[in-house]
C-alpha cells in the first residue's frame, strides 16, 4: 500500500522529468525561431484542436489516476460512511494541542478518526515522521468539522505539528514529539522508527 513517501517520490520523478522536458522544448523553440534558414510555417487547426484535447484529457486524468492510486483519497471521500475503529478527540487552544492520552496508540490497518476542535484560531493538524516528512494533514478551523480518517499500514512513531500559521509563535512551536505510535504491522515505516538507544 502506497504511503506519502511513495507518492511524493513518484511526484518528484514525474515533475523533474516534466520540468527538464519543458526547458528543453523552449530552448529548442528559441533556437528554431531565430534560425537564419528557418521558414515561416502554418500549424493546421486540427493540430490545435488535438492539443486542446490532450490538455483536457491530462487535466481530468490526473485526478482519476490519483483517486485510484492514492489510498487516502477514497477513504477521505467516503469517511462519513466508514465506521471508525478508533477515534481520537483532540482540542487546540492558545497554541497548544490537548490529546486524550499522552500518546495515541494506533493498531495497524484500523480506520482511525482524528477529530480536532479549535477553541480559538485556525490551526493545522499534521503527522510527521522522524525525518520530518509529512504523512497527513488537515486544516483546523474553529466552529467547523475537522475530522480526518486514516489507515496506517506500517509501524512507526510520529510527531503532531500544526501545519497552519496561527501567529508568530504557532507553527513549529506547536509540536508534540512522538505523540502517535502505530503498532502491529508486519512492515516498519523506516523513516518513522525511533532510534534505539
Amino acid at each position, binding site marked *: 500500500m502506497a504511503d506519502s513517501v511513495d507518492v511524493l517520490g513518484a511526484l518528484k520523478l514525474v*515533475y523533474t522529468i516534466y520540468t527538464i522536458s519543458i526547458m528543453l522544448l*523552449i530552448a529548442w523553440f*528559441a533556437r528554431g525561431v531565430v534560425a537564419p534558414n528557418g521558414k515561416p*510555417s502554418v500549424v493546421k487547426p486540427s493540430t490545435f484542436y488535438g492539443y486542446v484535447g490532450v*490538455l483536457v484529457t491530462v487535466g481530468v486524468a490526473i485526478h482519476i489516476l490519483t483517486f485510484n492510486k492514492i489510498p487516502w483519497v477514497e477513504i477521505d471521500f467516503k469517511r462519513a460512511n466508514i465506521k471508525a475503529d478508533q477515534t481520537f478527540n483532540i482540542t487546540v487552544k492558545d497554541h497548544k494541542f490537548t490529546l486524550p492520552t499522552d500518546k495515541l496508540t494506533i493498531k495497524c490497518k484500523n480506520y482511525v478518526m482524528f477529530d480536532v476542535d479549535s477553541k*480559538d484560531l485556525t490551526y493545522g493538524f499534521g503527522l510527521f515522521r522522524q525525518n520530518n516528512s*509529512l504523512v497527513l494533514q488537515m486544516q483546523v478551523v474553529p466552529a467547523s468539522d475537522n475530522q480526518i480518517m486514516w489507515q496506517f499500514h506500517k509501524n512507526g512513531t510520529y510527531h503532531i505539528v500544526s501545519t*497552519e500559521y496561527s501567529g508568530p509563535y504557532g507553527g513549529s512551536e506547536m509540536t508534540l514529539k512522538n505523540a502517535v505510535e502505530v503498532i502491529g504491522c508486519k512492515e516498519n515505516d523506516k523513516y518513522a522508527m525511533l532510534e534505539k538507544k
Partner: protein
Amino acid sequence: MGFIRTLINGNEGGLKTDGLTPTQKVTLRAVIVGVLYYGLCAIEGMLMRAHAVSPIPLLEENSHYFSVMTVHPIVGIFGSTYLIVFGAFTFLVPHLMNKPLYSVKLANVTWMLIAGGALMSWLGGFIFHYAPLYTLYWPLPVDFKQYDAIGGLVFILGVALIMVGTLGFIYNIFATVFYTEEGHEKRAIKPLIISGLGIDGFLNIWYKMTGREPYSKEPAVSLPVVAIFRGTIDTFLDALVILTCGILILIYIIGDLSGLPMDYTAVNALLYKNFFWWGLDLIADGLVLIYVAGTWYLLAMLITGKKLYMQNIARAALLLELIVSWAVWSHHLLGDQGQPNMMKLISGEMVTAFELVTQGIAVFITLVTLWSARPLKMTMPLKFLLAGILGFMLAVPAGILQADMGLNRVLHNTQWIVGPHVHVAILVGLTMTLYSAIYILWPTLTNDVKIWSNKLANFHFWGQLIGGIGMGAFMGMAGMDGMLRRTLYLNGEYETYMMLAGLCGALLLAAWFAFLFNVIMSIGVRGLIGVFLPSKLKTRDLVPKPQEV
C-alpha cells in the same frame, strides 16, 4: 568622469523629460515605483532566506520575521506588480484604442494611492509587527492578544488605500474604452461591450460553423484590450472582496481600540475563508492569467508584425478563463474538512484543471504566432517573452498537481506551494513577461533612449531565469521532504535546500540590481527625477509630435 556624467545625464544624453507627454510620464512613474517596490520585496525575501539558513539578529523576534512575511506579498503583488501592470495598461489601452487616456489626473492619483497604501501596510508590519499573513485567516487578524490593534489599523488602511487606487485604475480603463473623444463621431457602446467581453469571438466561430459570413470582420476592440477588459472585471471583483474583508477587520479593530471588543465567533471562519479566497484567488487565478495571456498576444503581434493565430479562439478562451476564474477558489480549501466534498471535487479539482486548458491555449497560440514569422531576431522582448511562457508552463501544472485531493493532503502549506508554483509563476512567468513588455515599450515611452549596457541586460535575463527557477526548485524539493511554509526551522532541518535556494535568491536580487542600474545609467539621475516633475507638454496625445521631442 565619463561614468559620473553618464550616471547623471544618462546614456547618449539620456531621457529628455521635457519632451515627455503627461501620459508617458504617468506610465513611467508607475513602472519605476513598481520596479523599486520589486527590489524591496526581493530584499525582504533575501532577509527571510538568510534567516532560514542562519538566524540573523534583525529577525530574531518571531513577530518581526512574520511581519516581514506578511508584508512581502503585499509589497510584491500590489506595490510592484499592480503598479507595473496598471502603469503599462494605462498607456496600452489608449494606444490600442487609438485615443487619449480618459484621465491622466486619475492615473496619477491611482499610482500614488497604490504606492502610498503599500508603504502604509509595510509600516504596519515594520513598526508594529502586525503579522496575520496575507491570508488573514479568521480570527487571526483580530487576535489582539497577539497583535497591537494600531498595527492592524495601519496595515488594513494601507490595503484599503491600495484597493481604492485599484478602483481608480478600473474606472479609468473602462472609461477609456467607452468614452467618445472630442470631435469624434459618437461611439456606440453595444459593439464595444460585445467585443470587450469576447462574445464576438464566440459568434464568429458559430457563424463559421453554420456557414455564414463572420459576425464581425473587424472587432471593435483589439485582442489585448479584450484581455485587459476581462482581467479588469476580476480586478474589480477582487477589490470589492478585499475591501469588504478590510471593513470587517476595521470594525473589530475600532471596537478594540474604543474599549468595546467584539466577539469574533460572530463570524464563521470557514464561510469567511471561502469568501476571502474567492476574492483573493481572482488575482492569482483570474486577472494575472488573463492579463498575462493578453500581454503575450500583444507581444507576439508586435514582435512578429503579424495577426494572431486562432484569433477567435483566443477571444473566446479569454471569456472562458474569466468564468473559470470565478469557480476555482475551492482548491485553496482542499485541506478543510468542513468544506463539502462536492465543492472540492468540482471547484477545487475539475474546474481548476481547466486552467491548464486556458493557459495552454495561450501558450500554443503565442508560440505558433512567433513560429509563423520565422526567422526572428533574438531581441530582449522575445527573450523575456519566451522565459515568461516557460515560467507559466512550469508553474501552472505545479498548481494543477497541488489542486488534487490526494496530493494536496501532503503538499498543502508546504514549500512546494510557494516554490514551484507561486514563486516560479511570479518571478519567472509574470515578472519576465512584464520585463518583455517594458523592453518593447521602452523606445515609445522614453522617446528612443538607448539602453546603456546589453551585457547587463543579458545578466538580468539569465539571473532572473536561473534564480527564479532554481529557487522554486529547491523550495519544492524541501516541500516534498516535509518543509512547511510559514514555519521557522532553526535547527538546520532543511539547511542544504535553504542554502541553495538562498544562492538562487541572491542571484535574483543581483539581477534586479543590474536592471535598475542599467535603467538609471540609460535615462540618467536627471531623467529619473524629471519623470516625477510635471510635464511641460500640455497635450492629451500619448506620445509627443516629432517637433516636440
